[in-house]
């Protein structure tokens, strides 16, 4: 459907920005993502899965990226990694793809409206949370190659 196409476009352009395509001319890199269960923060999960699979495949990347979802609740509190229920009740849900180099924003997608200050706060929170996710990447890769 249209929603899937839109998600594909977001994921594809994010991956294209990090994968060093010049080292693999005349090559097609296909990422197939199958949603097993959706309990909220789906897009962020897809982004994390994409990055880890690119790592696992051994493709040359300029930087790693991770997906973080922030939900802005009605009272103004920021909730990271919301469940499906929390997403529905939130005023706005913002998803960012944060690059590992200098924590820059690779991809941004918002649902619902928010003020500019709230967006900046969510972005700052997402950039802090990115550290935890990158640590998880490191641990997973270490576990995989330590055997």
């Amino acid at each position: 459907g249209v929603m899937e196409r839109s998600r594909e476009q977001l994921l594809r352009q994010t991956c294209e920005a990090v994968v060093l395509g010049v080292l693999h001319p005349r090559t097609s890199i296909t990422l197939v993502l199958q949603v097993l269960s959706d309990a909220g923060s789906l897009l962020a999960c897809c982004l994390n899965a994409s990055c880890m699979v690119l790592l696992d495949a051994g493709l040359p990347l300029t930087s790693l990226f991770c997906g973080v979802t922030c939900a802005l609740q009605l009272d103004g509190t920021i909730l990271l990694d919301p469940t499906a229920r929390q997403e529905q009740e939130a005023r706005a849900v913002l998803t960012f793809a944060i690059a590992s180099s200098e924590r820059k924003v690779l991809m941004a997608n918002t649902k619902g409206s928010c003020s500019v200050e709230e967006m900046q706060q969510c972005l700052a929170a997402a950039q802090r949370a990115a550290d935890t996710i990158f640590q998880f990447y490191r641990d997973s890769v270490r576990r995989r190659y330590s055997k």
Partner: protein
Amino acid sequence: RTVEPLEYYRRFLKENCRPDGRELGEFRTTTVNIGKCLCSITTADGSALVKLGNTTVICGVKAELAAPAADSADKGYIVPNVELPSLCAERFRSGPPGEEAQAASQFIADVIENSQMIVKEDLCIANGKLAWVLYCDIICLDYDGNLLDASVFALLAALKNVQLPSVTINEETGLSEVNLKQKNPLIIRKHPVATSFAVFDDTLLIVDPTAEEEDLATGTVTIVTDEEGRLCSVHKPGGSPLTGAKLQDCITRAITRHKEVKKLIDKVIKSITPK
């Protein structure tokens, strides 16, 4: 320009301007035609034609009646559809809608939902029985970059032009009666305006890219703001990474653009309303 397009562009960008003479933060001339007399669609309930430089987008809104969904009995429907026919640019082939058209349709649907420009409850006529469905068809006639901005603007202008006939439900027969003589305009609560930027070489941001600039760019950002300065959408589909500060610059420019567009739309609406 044809052999080394990127170098050609870089030479202009170094001087802080672009080949068509615009500054980095300048928009192309925007013109909008609304309504049955100026815009060509006479069968639509509302229509608008927007030209952003060479990019031409036409939007037609048709209102039909339908039964509301079971779980939201007091809500109508708004169905946007963006079409990029093969006549607008040589890269679009005829056949099923490509990814760009589908992503644009999803984007427009998100903008309508996020900005709450039309509240679906307003489209309900009789709870659980009858509601309006607004089919918004946005067709690009000439693609020269910056499709999203033009589409959002065309949609807003067309919706402002929509006149819905009043519908009453006959108590005895249970059928709906449409009164074509008595028309009410649609209630538009918010006016979202989109501003698109192209990112060059990971650092430079230019506003309102043409098709040539979009091809050379390393990324795009689209910001949708409403009149209160709230962000309805930050759409950055991948592309080169940006810092928070650069995003903030984009947002400030988007807010200024919103004021310009709002003024233009108000002027045009005032010129077509019969006194």
